């Protein structure tokens, strides 16, 4: 069983599917096979809004074995913990993490950390976006925090 996990993205500006998130979905739709289980992962920034996972589900059109929504993940660590939970639930042997190019390293490391102790293979399918200045500033700070966040992901199981 293969689990394809698409990590949501949103900003403060609106409740619609963000272009960054749409690009991740498009990347995933070229990756998913009919026998895959798909995980759409991401929270709602405001209670009145749809979760990133919901918005992705509405836009999803590709055949898959099943589609799971994780509406609770509010960070990449949260995404990773949800991926590990879903992987155990569907007895996945492989997880494909789908996200933006600038986010891929961190996302895949945290997914592996959350799956520590399992035999699940984790691979990355990333878009080719380099990210905005703001995103790259944040990724540098996140790179510093990554080993510590990986410890959190590994312990929070």
């Amino acid at each position, binding site marked *: 069983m293969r689990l394809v996990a698409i990590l949501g993205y949103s900003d403060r500006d609106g409740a619609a599917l963000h272009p960054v998130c749409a690009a991740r979905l498009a990347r995933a739709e070229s990756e998913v096979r009919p026998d895959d289980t798909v995980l759409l992962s991401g929270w709602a920034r405001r209670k009145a809004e749809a979760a990133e996972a919901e918005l992705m589900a509405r836009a999803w059109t590709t055949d898959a074995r099943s589609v799971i929504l994780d509406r609770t993940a509010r960070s990449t660590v949260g995404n990773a*913990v949800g991926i590990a939970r879903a992987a155990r639930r569907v007895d996945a042997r492989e997880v494909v993490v789908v996200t933006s190019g600038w986010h891929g390293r961190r996302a895949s490391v945290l997914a592996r950390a959350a799956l*520590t102790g399992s035999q*699940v293979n984790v691979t990355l399918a990333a878009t080719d976006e380099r990210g905005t200045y703001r995103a790259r500033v944040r990724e540098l700070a996140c*790179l510093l925090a990554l080993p510590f966040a*990986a*410890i*959190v992901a590994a312990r*929070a199981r």
Partner: protein
Amino acid sequence: MTRKLLASGTAALALVAAGCGGGDESSASPTEEWANSFCTAITTWKDSLTSVTEQFSSLSSLTSEALTDAANDAKSSTETFVDELRALGPPETESGEAVKSSIDELSNTVESEVAKIESTAEGVSGLADLPSAITSITTSISAMSSAVSSTAQTAESADTSGELRTALEDTPACADISS
């Protein structure tokens, strides 16, 4: 303001930009030498952090011990980076002291937030600890990101004559900063 800084490649933006290359320093001015040291410190730090995470390319490398070692490595390389920033002194420009003060503030922020992140990670023992840990780490990341932006703004405001910007643009070690 920040986007303008990115486009022009001013000093603090070196903190977030791509790696720097090498170059001939024989004819560099003091300000260019400062810029070179600044960019080299950033590149070394960024490369070190990248190297720390690259070891986690497979599940077999993600043991509890390896994660702890990686966290210690990240902390150690950050301490070196902060020490190097503090040791830089001010650039020999009209705005040198203001830039130095701003970089010192950034150094202090990075140092204190890393300590908080470390403490948070040490305190997690199960799923119930996850929400508060995420909030804490996210807050620290935001604080560091804000400190970078603040340093960039301060550097631009202080560098009224554009000396520092010119040095950064002309210094080979910072050649890739605005890319």
